């Protein structure tokens, strides 16, 4: 009996490319070669390709799920795909490349630990490559794979690849991306996707799949600063658990152990962890991203939105903060001075954006200071004030306690996503 899967880990990655870079073909190829595409799906795609009059089976149709997308041949939203090898399970957040969809890439990147950015070998590093890389850097994705696609169309020439690598290195030195891998591929023919390419003997690195399977992902969570946002209070009110009062939540950083001295924010009360509970029994320790329930030695009033932290390492507790935001709403622009709802960890408050300091031109990375209107797909640096203190860390330090969303109270729509500076 094969039990290797009990020790597999999980890698979430996002893919970005501009229109016609062959992104859907690449994903189709990965799924197909990893046997994650089934005969009935392939038959359905063959039938659709035929109906549309495509000359070859269009693997892009595997990922374009909605009627409008199939009819117009575009991808309108973030789609999630799954495949696994004996080593890892992968979750792909597949985001479309059109200019108007910056918000989708931000969304897809928010849960990813790695980004595959595609470039067309014939076009090299273009404006959209810059945009995708900037977003990856802004969202603190630790690892980028620059997949130079369509190598078959440049006769698999090493010089073409090397030039693109140089151009990208030049540009990306201005960004904050710790690891970049460069892989020459042909998604259409399968070169260096799953199997090494016989057409590019000069390339000595791993295939795309090999890289995905082996990339180090241990730094995806902060295991230093202990943060436990309380999500729900468990009170069984039954005979056998009469006095049980457990604080349920998902560890957002650091490691908690039974007996640890903790502080409850924002009240500042102190106590000790009595036990860490799971359904299976008590645990010795809990770390991100585990969902557990804690009980404390002392009876303290704690509710959703409070945070349990270690005594010597508190988060910032404040009502005034600076952040980078991406605006998501098509129908309304950011209004300074207006009240919005903010969601940060398990806490909800009202907020007012006081000032837009600058916007970022995502294609050139230049600061824009003359036009400060913030609308759909704009990325801006703002300062805000909240109705109650947020218990936060810089986004660079912790993605969970450094991120928030802004909700418009009139429409209930999520109008922006933010990263605390």
């Amino acid at each position: 009996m094969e039990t290797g899967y009990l020790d597999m880990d999980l890698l979430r990655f996002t893919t970005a490319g501009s229109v016609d870079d062959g992104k859907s073909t690449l994903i189709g190829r990965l799924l197909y070669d990893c046997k994650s595409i089934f005969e009935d799906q392939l038959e359905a795609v063959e039938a659709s390709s035929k109906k549309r009059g495509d000359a070859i089976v269009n693997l892009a149709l595997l990922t374009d799920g909605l009627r409008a997308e199939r009819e117009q041949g575009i991808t309108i939203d973030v789609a999630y795909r799954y495949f696994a090898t004996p080593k890892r399970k992968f979750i792909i957040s597949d985001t479309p490349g059109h200019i108007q969809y910056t918000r989708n890439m931000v969304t897809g990147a928010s849960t990813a630990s790695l980004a595959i950015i595609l470039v067309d070998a014939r076009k090299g590093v273009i404006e959209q490559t810059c945009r995708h890389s900037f977003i990856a850097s802004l969202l603190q994705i630790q690892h980028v794979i620059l997949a130079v696609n369509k190598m078959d169309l440049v006769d698999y020439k090493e010089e073409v690849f090397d030039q693109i690598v140089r151009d990208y290195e030049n540009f990306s030195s201005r960004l904050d991306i710790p690891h970049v891998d460069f892989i020459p591929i042909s998604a259409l023919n399968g070169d260096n996707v799953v199997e090494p390419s016989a057409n590019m003997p000069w390339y000595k690195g791993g295939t795309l799949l090999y890289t995905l399977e082996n990339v180090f992902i241990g730094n995806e969570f902060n295991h230093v600063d202990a943060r436990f946002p309380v999500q729900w209070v468990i009170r069984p009110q039954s005979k056998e658990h009469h006095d049980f009062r457990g604080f349920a939540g998902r560890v957002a950083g650091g490691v908690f152990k039974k007996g640890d001295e903790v502080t409850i924010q924002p009240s500042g009360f102190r106590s000790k962890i009595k036990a860490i509970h799971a359904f299976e029994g008590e645990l010795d320790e809990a770390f991100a991203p585990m969902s557990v329930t804690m009980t404390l030695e002392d009876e303290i009033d704690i509710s959703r939105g409070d945070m349990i932290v270690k005594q010597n390492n508190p988060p910032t507790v404040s009502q005034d903060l600076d952040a980078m935001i991406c605006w998501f709403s098509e129908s309304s622009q950011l209004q300074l001075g207006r009240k919005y709802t903010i969601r940060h960890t398990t806490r909800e408050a009202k907020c007012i954006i006081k000032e837009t300091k600058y916007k970022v031109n995502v294609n050139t990375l230049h600061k824009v200071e003359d036009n400060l209107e913030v609308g759909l797909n704009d990325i801006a640096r703002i300062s805000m004030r909240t109705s109650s203190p947020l218990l936060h860390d810089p986004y660079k330090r912790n993605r969970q306690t450094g991120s928030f969303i802004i909700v418009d109270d009139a429409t209930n729509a999520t109008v922006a996503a933010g990263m605390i500076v």
Partner: protein
Amino acid sequence: MHKNYRLTHLKSLEAEAIFIMREVAAQFEKPVMLFSGGKDSIVMVRLAQKAFHPARLPFPLMHIDTEHNFPETIEFRDRLVQEVGAELIVRSVQDSIDKGRVNEEKGPNASRNALQIVTLLDALEEFQFSAAIGGARRDEEKARAKERFFSHRNEFGQWDPKNQRPELWNLFNGKMHIGENFRIFPLSNWTEMDVWQYIKLENLSLPSIYFSHEREVVARQGIYLAHSPYLTLSEDEVVERQIVRCRTVGDMTCTGVVASPAENVDDIIAEVAAARVTERGGRADDKRSETAMEDRKKDGYF
């Protein structure tokens, strides 16, 4: 750091699903969990137990019963509900038909699958449920791949795929206007394989129809359907006996069974690993058109 703090893929998925369930309890006034007796809903019940342990589930379970179910599933459902100590609500499609809310489909491919939409929407309104937790997964079907964990439905219960709320990090926005509601999918990121591996890991018991057994079946459009009083045979169709099992458990009229010798969860995991057809490949309801699932979801289906 001297220690490798990492979770296996199953534990990561579990932690995420538990987080979603607690978020539902915290954000919604009156949630309900839909329960069919199928493997995904059995996994969901276990995850809910884990989320709220040692307390009971803070929401009832609800079964939208087509009354064309495999009897084994219903027996199993009642036993599990009792074990867990949960409250079970049952609303039946037959009642909706009797009240004239829907018309029974006619012809050999008639199924009550689509009729469930009306019964479900009526039940949500009857109890004023603001959120219904379901076991749908994104890997099941291409329209589902674009679904959110927190899926907003308008006052008609409809899904608008072009106007979905973006979901970032683990921040979920469950705000809504009166009359609207949410469908919540904690298993969004699970695949069929993950579900089976989790069943193995947790040693969960399942209705017997998931395992190999001998049954009367009818071959139709390349799939075997279980023979039952609810299935209308056309003239050239014959009933045969085969060793089969169910890959999914839905309405008997549209759930295909597959020839399989798999007797236990290990056998099934091996079978799923080697499978070349998706689990919904045997679902006649999805085969009605290329966008059958998308169209049903827009009407209020799961």
